[in-house]
């Protein structure tokens, strides 16, 4: 048995989170590496990686509704926004123009997810009636309505062009904004933030894996591959489509709330059409419907500009020497990646990883 890792003798083994010891080993190595990274890396990279981790939480969200259940949504950015503002109101500081209750992170983080999930239930009855492009267009309308509300609901969002400060990092009544002191060792805010993001990312990642291998995950796959057939086989379309949207929005809310604490402030204009397209594009680039895909996509989206800046820094090139500015280079790269991945590798970065892994698994033989 030991030398046959791909031989499964029962179903539990086959659907296990880690199907063999190699995966367990590499997960442990990766975990130790990423924890120790926060003591080694500079703030620049720590912030980038924290951002990637939070973005991948949001990307798992849209992967539930678009990758697993096959329902296309362009409103994911709005749910991220709802999560961000719920967290900001509950955990942020009040000023003359905006509300804020300065609650603990234990309250605002789950609340961000739950409120976003509740709002997504507005879309649920529509999601059952419509499918394909029509559903995408309804979510597009929802997105525009949301962004209008965001820019006009000043006591929550601070108003268009102004924005507000977001939730404070206060956990178990301990204020983490100034860092933590253990004896003569200081853990800075960025490092704590990174560890929280890492913890959340792992929890949400396992959550996603569990959704995939549960009854709900199989129902989603059924709806994606043929909704009428799934309904004929006894899958309750309303319940599963609604729950897909709710779960996706929960992930969006939590990921958004955590990501906002890294940037410190949010402006309502952020949650526009491009932001939602970004969410779709991340899973297209990463690999829709896979567990690791959103992680790859989010890291690619955040780290690629980071690397471009890093290369500019070490080659002493200034921005003015380039034909495009940095934001435009990012946008071009991103647009090109969407097009090229869709044409040449629809399974995304995960597909490349899959082929690489299989190549080395059988090396030096071709299969």
């Amino acid at each position, binding site marked *: 048995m030991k030398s046959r890792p791909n031989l499964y003798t029962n179903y539990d083994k086959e659907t296990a989170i880690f199907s063999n010891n190699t995966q367990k080993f590499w997960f442990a190595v990766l975990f130790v590496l990423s924890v120790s990274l926060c003591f080694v890396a500079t703030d620049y990279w720590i912030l980038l990686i924290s951002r990637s981790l939070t973005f991948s939480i949001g990307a798992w969200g849209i992967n539930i509704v678009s990758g697993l259940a096959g329902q*296309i949504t362009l409103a994911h950015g709005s749910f991220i926004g709802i999560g961000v503002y719920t967290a900001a109101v509950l955990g942020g500081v009040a000023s003359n123009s905006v509300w804020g209750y300065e609650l603990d992170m234990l309250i605002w983080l789950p609340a961000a997810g739950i409120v976003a999930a509740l709002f997504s239930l507005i879309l649920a009855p*529509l999601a059952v*009636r*419509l499918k*394909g*492009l*029509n559903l*995408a*267009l*309804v979510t*597009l*309308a*929802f997105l*525009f*309505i949301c962004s*209008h*509300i965001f*820019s*006009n609901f000043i006591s929550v969002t601070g108003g*268009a062009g102004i924005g507000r400060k977001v939730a404070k990092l206060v956990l178990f009544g301990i204020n983490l904004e100034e860092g933590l002191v253990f004896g003569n060792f200081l853990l800075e805010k960025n490092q704590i933030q990174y560890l929280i993001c890492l913890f959340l990312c792992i929890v949400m990642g396992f959550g996603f894996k569990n959704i995939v291998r549960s009854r709900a995950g199989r129902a989603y796959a059924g709806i994606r591959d043929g909704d*009428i*057939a799934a309904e*004929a086989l006894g899958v309750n379309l309303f319940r599963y489509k609604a729950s897909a949207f709710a779960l996706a929005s929960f992930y969006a809310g939590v990921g958004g709330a955590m990501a906002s604490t890294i940037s410190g402030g949010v402006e309502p204009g952020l949650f526009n*059409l491009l932001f939602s*397209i970004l969410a*779709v*594009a991340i899973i*297209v680039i990463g690999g829709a419907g896979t567990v690791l895909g959103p992680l790859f996509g989010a890291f690619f989206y955040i780290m690629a500009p980071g690397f471009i800046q890093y290369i500019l820094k070490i080659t002493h090139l200034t921005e003015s020497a380039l*034909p*495009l*500015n940095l934001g*435009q280079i990012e*946008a*071009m790269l*991103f*647009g*090109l*990646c*969407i*097009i090229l991945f*869709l*044409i040449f590798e*629809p399974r995304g970065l995960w597909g490349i990883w899959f082929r690489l892994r299989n190549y080395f698994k059988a090396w030096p033989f071709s299969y």
Partner: protein
Amino acid sequence: MTIFLQATVEGLSLAAIYSLVAIGFVLIYKSMDVLSFAQPALAVVGAGLISSLAVDRGVPFWVALFIGISLTGVLGLIVERTFLRPMVGEPVFSVAILTIGIDILLRTTLDNWIGLNPRYMGDPFPSFGNFGSAQIGGVTIKYLEIAALATAIFIIIALNVFFRKSKYGVAMRATSFDQEAALAQGINVGRIFGLVWFIAGILAAFAGFFITGGFNTLSQTSFVVALRALPAVVIGGLDSIPGAVVGSIIIGLTQGYVAYYQYDFEILTGITLGNGFSLLAPYIIMFFILVVKPDGLYGTKEVERV
């Protein structure tokens, strides 16, 4: 009454602009089953080409207009050949996402050229002062608005004749009816796809010119106006050209009336709708139409095989 007429005139001219983009959407959707999100980008790129020729290069306005619009058509053709041809037969939504990628590429290039200051389109009648306007019974009508209306009506009639009388028009209708049958009859479907994108590009460029002409100017956010043709298409039904025109009129008039009457309404009822509500109104109408009639007012009902 004057306000009502003013709102109607402005609404109708908006409707003309939207219908140009909307017909492009419908043509592409009918022939290829692709919802092209790149249409707004083609519109602003067309405007950019005209502006760069007429203002930066000093080409006479009418020549610049002609070259700019033709070049946008060719750009549509190139986009179809390079990016969309390999995607024939892929899921509808993958292709839609792909057109979003094209949209990002085109607009980033254009934004880089526009820079921070808005661009002007040039003026064929300098004596009128930026396209000029006329006062008829207290209603201000810009000549540009009349031109937009006239152009849209002319193009719609011309397209109608083209589809009914010309060889390629009939071939396009055959292709949109049944691709494989059209292939079997010896129609070069690939060429039809190219032609569709060429026409859609030309229509988009006209719309782009009217969106950014005169005092409106071309800026990095001009494409949002063209994107509002999407609700118009959806209201009319994605596969119906008369629907696209009707949808555009509904959207244009709504936008005009809301812009003029929002303030009165807010005072009357005490509800604040917020800044720029007239720009949101088309999407709200789209939302409710989709809930009630998912295939739009004129669209054919989708038949699903199990």
